[in-house]
């Protein structure tokens, strides 16, 4: 039915009780947004590490392994810090529940950490005197194992935030896994570029070709999924004049600023990574490294944008009640 023939008189029934939100504000604070980034970073970096291990580039493999552990350390700190009762964090381990993405995620995180930790331990062991023929295969198997779990670690967090009543998260449930996967891939590749630049391999030819390709491809997926997400959110009408769709949660304030900065950092950084470093020279290494840092910032900002847009959409009853009301009484069928 054409737009002009739809409901003429706006629905004047208030959207809520004294304008109060229908939903409770998420109790999650910034560490959770931080974890969305560091978890993806750990996953992406472990993929770089495993491929370096397969290609027998032991310096990059060890560096990536160390970076993965750092990202994991930050992740654990963020996750535990955000609990209302941090001393009870181990209660997460008393059940396995497929209906709870947080429970599934706890087990994915634990498995990934165990493998990444084992790989690093084997390397330390080698230095401490464990025979090479034991330590090296152990490190390699654990590192490749962690890389196989990594995609699950990077994408379960999308299900974690989508499986809520928060409109800007739940309504983006089909796009968020791709966004998170792309963003984690970009972060991993970018970390690979940064590590390669720091290790300064001198061999001529292309500089960190694999991680560079990975960073650019990940950034493309991230930006594409982000576009798809906004298109989806724009299609969910609220019936409100000032905030016409759920995407309006991204239209003002912090979510808008963060989303814009994220896009600029990701696109600019990916371009720099793609263009610089085709020849291995100190200057191009520097530019590619800076681009990689920009891609990393973009990924972090993107997670914070999503986090804050979710909070904004939960705080305003229009995003909760509007689409539900239109679902019950579609505008065209209005008596």
């Amino acid at each position, binding site marked *: 039915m054409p737009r002009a023939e739809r409901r003429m008189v706006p629905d004047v*029934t208030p959207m809520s*009780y004294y304008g*109060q939100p*229908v*939903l*409770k504000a*998420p*109790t*999650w604070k910034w560490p959770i947004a931080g974890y969305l980034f560091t978890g993806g970073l750990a996953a*992406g970096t472990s993929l770089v590490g495993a*491929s*370096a291990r397969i290609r027998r*580039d032991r310096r*990059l493999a060890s560096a990536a392994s160390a970076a993965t552990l750092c990202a994991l350390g930050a992740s654990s700190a963020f996750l535990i810090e*955000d*609990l*209302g*009762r*941090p001393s009870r964090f181990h*209660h*997460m381990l008393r*059940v396995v*529940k*497929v*209906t*709870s*993405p*947080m429970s599934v995620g*706890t087990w994915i995180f634990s498995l990934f950490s165990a493998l990444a930790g084992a790989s690093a331990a084997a390397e330390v062991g080698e230095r401490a005197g464990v025979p090479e023929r034991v330590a090296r295969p152990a490190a390699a198997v654990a590192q490749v194992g962690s890389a196989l779990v*990594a*995609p699950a670690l*990077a*994408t379960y967090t*999308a*299900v974690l935030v*989508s*499986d*809520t*009543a*928060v409109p800007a998260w*739940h309504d983006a*449930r*089909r796009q968020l*896994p791709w966004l*998170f996967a*792309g963003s984690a891939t970009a972060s*991993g*590749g970018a970390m*690979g570029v940064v590590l*390669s630049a720091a290790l300064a391999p001198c061999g001529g030819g292309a500089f960190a*070709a*694999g991680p560079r*390709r*990975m960073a650019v*491809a990940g950034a493309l997926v991230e930006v594409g999924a982000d576009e798809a997400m906004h298109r989806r959110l724009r299609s969910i009408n609220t019936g409100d004049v000032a905030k016409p769709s759920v995407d309006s949660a991204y239209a003002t304030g912090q979510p808008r600023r963060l989303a814009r900065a994220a896009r600029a950092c990701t696109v600019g950084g990916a371009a720099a990574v793609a263009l610089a470093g085709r020849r291995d020279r100190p200057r191009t290494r520097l530019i590619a490294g800076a681009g990689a840092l920009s891609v990393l910032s973009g990924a972090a900002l993107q997670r914070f944008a999503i986090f804050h847009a979710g909070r904004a959409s939960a705080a305003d*009853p229009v995003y909760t009640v509007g689409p*539900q*009301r239109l*679902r*019950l009484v579609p505008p065209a069928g209005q008596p």
Partner: protein
Amino acid sequence: MTIIDRSSTGTDVTLAGVGTPAYDREQRVGFFTDTSVCIGCKACEVACKEWNDVPADGLEFLGRSYDNTGRLSADTWRHVAFVEQPVATPETQAVSGMRWLMSSDVCKHCTSAACLEVCPTGALFRTEFETVVVQQDICNGCGYCVSACPFGVIDQRKGDGRVWKCTLCYDRLRGGQTPACAQACPTQSIQFGPLEQLRERAATRVDALHQQGVADARLYGEDPADGVGGFGAFFLLLDRPEVYGLPPDPVSTTRDLPGMWRMAGAAALGMLGLAAGSLLEGGRRA
């Protein structure tokens, strides 16, 4: 009268509350909150606080009619809403007076309870009465249930860190008693009993109101086919749910979970392929 338990003294405990039907263990019980007879006395709020030892939630002056409680929270498990509405004469549309809508809100004890489903510790569980309760010795305050509840019921208690909400007086149910709020309600606006009976009673009541000319009377949450599988605590409202601060078409977020897992699985495989394609391509060292 059904014998529902045996007390410590050996005498049979039966249920004899006014207007409260007998119930057995293993039977789904709930509330039918008939807001058309609510007088806004807040006896339910007080009784709930008293019985459950719920801490004070601050002294706020909200200036919203007679409601200074505001909302359900970790420290408010029953909340009486006061809506003041101008009433117009149908013929002239001129405002001819005011009406008060009062409604005592509570946890819905959803059939498909998102809070319970997403809880990663198993602290939230379903009791033998099919109510939804938090085990306070298990909860670690992850806050997932808070974002999952489509009604904004459950919340974290400040300074305590754990989440709290209505237990439908689990302790009283086990003792064969009526929950405190329903016991205290002087108008039987809050009715407690086996859910099946409450649904029948609600259908009769809404028909009666329609016959008396209250065309706006409607049931909210009585339908097991709704987005949360029906409420264990449902309502009779005199206006649209959103007017009382209730979502008009709540859906349990976990309904879409299988699709979300599938999409995440696809994205995970895509990520693995993307990484392998870009990292392992070419023979030279990366």
